[in-house]
């Protein structure tokens, strides 16, 4: 192990001294990592394993330790009735669960879709040189800095059906014929959630894309300019391919974040089946409806879905997080 520790120093020192130094550094490294690893094991590793374990038991909120192993029963179980028909039970046969899956996927897709497009536009604007760029950058940091709960409540006031400014504005501009009950009506609840999420997270997307844009050398554009390449073509042939790595990382960060969404939906559209996501459903089952085992099953399924998605995305998209070696 650690034969190449401190490789950059290899040429500077005699072989014997080097190996001692290497050993000392490797020992120190191990010591330095232990507290963090122990902490992560206690707050992440062990709870994750226990949550998965609970999904295979009949645990309830008040009886965690007396829980008995029931196998895949929480996921899917069936019963053959006397008449010969088979009745399925469990999370995988639960329409509420599939509704939540559909809501989550729909939310994740549309929010990230719009955040990518709008984030790209904002990033391109910020990448241009103009008077007042500092003001724009400061302004877009404000939605990012506002706590999600606060923005949910701010927007639910703005989207209020009777006294909301959005309805007022929409009617003054002639865009709305009558006031809309944005958060209460099942038809518009998802749109309302999407508006708030896009407003809040586009800045993050824009900043990540901007960091990618700023790494593109300016002389490429100068060369394209001399060759008379149209700006639109420049964007698709130069900017987009070169910013792609940054974009791919930004998108996966956002998708993973969107798939686990809880707070915004919990506060903006409480109890609406049109927006209830997997996280919301699982939390309610775990701690409010006393379906602890079922909630654990749902959270395990969400974890599994996100894990599979991440692996596929990194594998197919060849995303490079550039974490370890240079």
């Amino acid at each position, binding site marked *: 192990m650690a034969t190449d520790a401190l490789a950059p120093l290899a040429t500077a020192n005699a072989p014997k001294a080097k190996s001692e130094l290497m050993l000392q550094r490797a020992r120190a490294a191990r010591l330095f990592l232990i507290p963090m690893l122990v902490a992560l094991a206690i707050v992440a590793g062990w709870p*994750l394993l226990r949550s998965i374990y609970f999904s295979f038991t009949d645990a309830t909120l008040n009886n965690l330790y007396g829980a008995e192993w029931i196998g895949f029963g929480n996921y899917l179980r069936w019963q053959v009735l006397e008449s010969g028909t088979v009745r399925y039970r469990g999370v995988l046969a639960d329409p509420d669960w599939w509704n939540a899956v559909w809501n989550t996927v729909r939310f994740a897709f549309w929010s990230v879709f719009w955040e990518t497009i709008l984030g790209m536009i904002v990033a391109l604007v910020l990448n241009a040189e103009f008077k007042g760029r500092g003001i724009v950058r400061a302004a877009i940091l404000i939605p990012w800095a506002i706590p999600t709960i606060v923005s949910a409540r701010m927007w639910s006031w703005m989207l209020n059906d009777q006294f909301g400014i959005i309805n007022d504005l929409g009617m003054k501009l002639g865009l709305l014929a009558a006031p809309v009950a944005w958060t209460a009506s099942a038809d518009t609840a998802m749109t309302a959630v999407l508006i708030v999420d896009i407003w809040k997270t586009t800045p993050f997307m824009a900043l*990540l894309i*901007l960091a990618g844009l700023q790494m593109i050398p300016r002389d490429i554009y100068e060369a394209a300019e001399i060759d008379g390449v149209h700006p639109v073509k420049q964007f698709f042939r130069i900017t987009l391919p070169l910013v792609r790595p940054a974009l791919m*990382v930004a998108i996966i960060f956002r998708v993973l974040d969107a798939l686990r969404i809880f707070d915004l939906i919990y506060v903006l559209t409480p109890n609406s089946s049109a927006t209830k996501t997997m996280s919301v459903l699982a939390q309610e089952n775990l701690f409010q409806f006393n379906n602890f085992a079922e909630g654990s099953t749902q959270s395990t399924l969400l974890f599994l879905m996100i894990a599979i998605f991440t692996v596929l995305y990194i594998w197919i998209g060849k995303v490079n997080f550039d974490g370890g070696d240079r």
Partner: protein
Amino acid sequence: MGATFDLWKTTKTVLFYALVVVIVVVSVFPFYYAILTSLKSGTDLFRVTYWPTSFSLDNFRQVFTQGEFPRNLLNSVFVASVTVILALFLAITASFALSRVRFRGRSLLLMTILAVSMFPQIAVLAGLFEVIRFLGIYNTPWALIFAYTIFTLPFTVWVLTTFMRDLPIEIEEAAIVDGATPWVIITKVFMPLMWPALVTTGLLAFIAAWNEFLFALTFTVSNQTRTVPVAIALLSGGSQYEIPWGIIMAASVIVTVPLVALVLIFQRKIVSGLTAGGVKG
């Protein structure tokens, strides 16, 4: 010909600045409107206005005198500060090992840390609840400090690792030649260079802890132990038709103004902290 060219150029400039104005207005308006609402009282609240019409501090007075809001604020400050200190303390030494010493499995370890910071918090909720009850810290601020480590620690380790990787090797070589141990290198050589990075990471972790909702909602149950986001989410009137919008907006403004101020002061550092690690590929 020259005239049309100028016209096109002018149109382009106008359109560009129109876009800039739209971006700024859309970003700032909701917060501006919250401030506007928080300063209204009585029936004024239910009249839509776009400019300030009245100036009343009634809502702010009520936030501080009714209910447990001051207590909630203190809880939030305490939880977020202790979480950050703990995360930074554990992260500094760990990121030294991850950034400056080569060992087998380092990339895998880094990817695992990144994965922990990205995985859904709901997946550990049941197990974390069990651990927290076992430790006897349910419904105390310590439950939240404990739980928040799950996202602040991986994040701080990840960002500090990318910062430390970029420190020049010569500094370290010089220290090693002088006989410095890794511990001395961290505390005496790197720490003074790391202050900007520590401030940035600490600030971002603080914001994340300050804003957290799922754990706070699940692991605290009484008004006295709640943090601000839960308190604001659960602020309600006598019935669902009497939501106290003025008070909610006042509370929202109170918890947001310090954050917005901090973010604007540390703008550049925050942007570099957010993008560090993620987009180098």
